[in-house]
């Protein structure tokens, strides 16, 4: 089935490097979310896209983090000058629209495990 896919599944990088994480949402889903899950914690909201625009980026921790969704489908999360504290699993989710309801659930991808050495 065509679920949410994320690439790469694993990324190891050195402190100070730049990384890009990609998310392919379910076709037709207009809403896309990025979350970050640190060890032993639940997912933490980063940013929400409705179509091409970032409707809520209140969860981005600082200006090293940036995300785009230029055509309203694939999204890329970009992290500049990575730090060891950025190590986490980055999860992407999509839903038909941004409204929450029992019939409009968020479907999550398997995540990208980022390790910053």
């Amino acid at each position, binding site marked *: 089935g065509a679920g949410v896919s994320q690439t790469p599944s694993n990324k190891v990088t050195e402190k100070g490097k730049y990384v890009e994480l990609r998310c392919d949402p379910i076709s037709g889903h207009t809403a896309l979310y990025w979350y970050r899950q640190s060890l032993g*914690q*639940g*997912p933490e909201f980063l940013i929400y896209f409705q179509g091409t625009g970032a*409707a*809520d980026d209140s969860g981005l921790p600082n200006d090293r983090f940036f995300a785009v969704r230029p055509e309203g489908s694939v999204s890329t999360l970009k992290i500049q000058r990575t730090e060891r504290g950025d190590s986490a699993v980055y999860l992407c989710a999509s839903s038909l629209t*941004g409204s*929450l309801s029992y019939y409009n659930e968020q479907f999550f991808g*398997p995540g990208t495990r980022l390790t910053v050495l």
Partner: protein
Amino acid sequence: DQQVKQNSPSLSVQEGRISILNCDYTNSMFDYFLWYKKYPAEGPTFLISISSIKDKNEDGRFTVFLNKSAKHLSLHIVPSQPGDSAVYFCAASANSNTGKLIFGQGTTLQVKP
């Protein structure tokens, strides 16, 4: 500031018995609550949800109860099956128009055969 808390990191129950997972929240603006289930190396999958206008929602073996005055919700699984063994996350939203979710830390459920 942990707005959604799951105070039990783990729970172990016998197959066929009831599993009760608990969740507390602090933000009175939350109006929609969800439970997600997560297996290792997979993303969370939606299980069941409840709107703040209800106090109970049932779907097969899964029932979610909401006590707004206590700011508490719980997930009941009856009967528990070994395949239910996973990490369960409680999540809440203060604006159901955006879908932004605030998650708890998770509870690892182990159902023993």
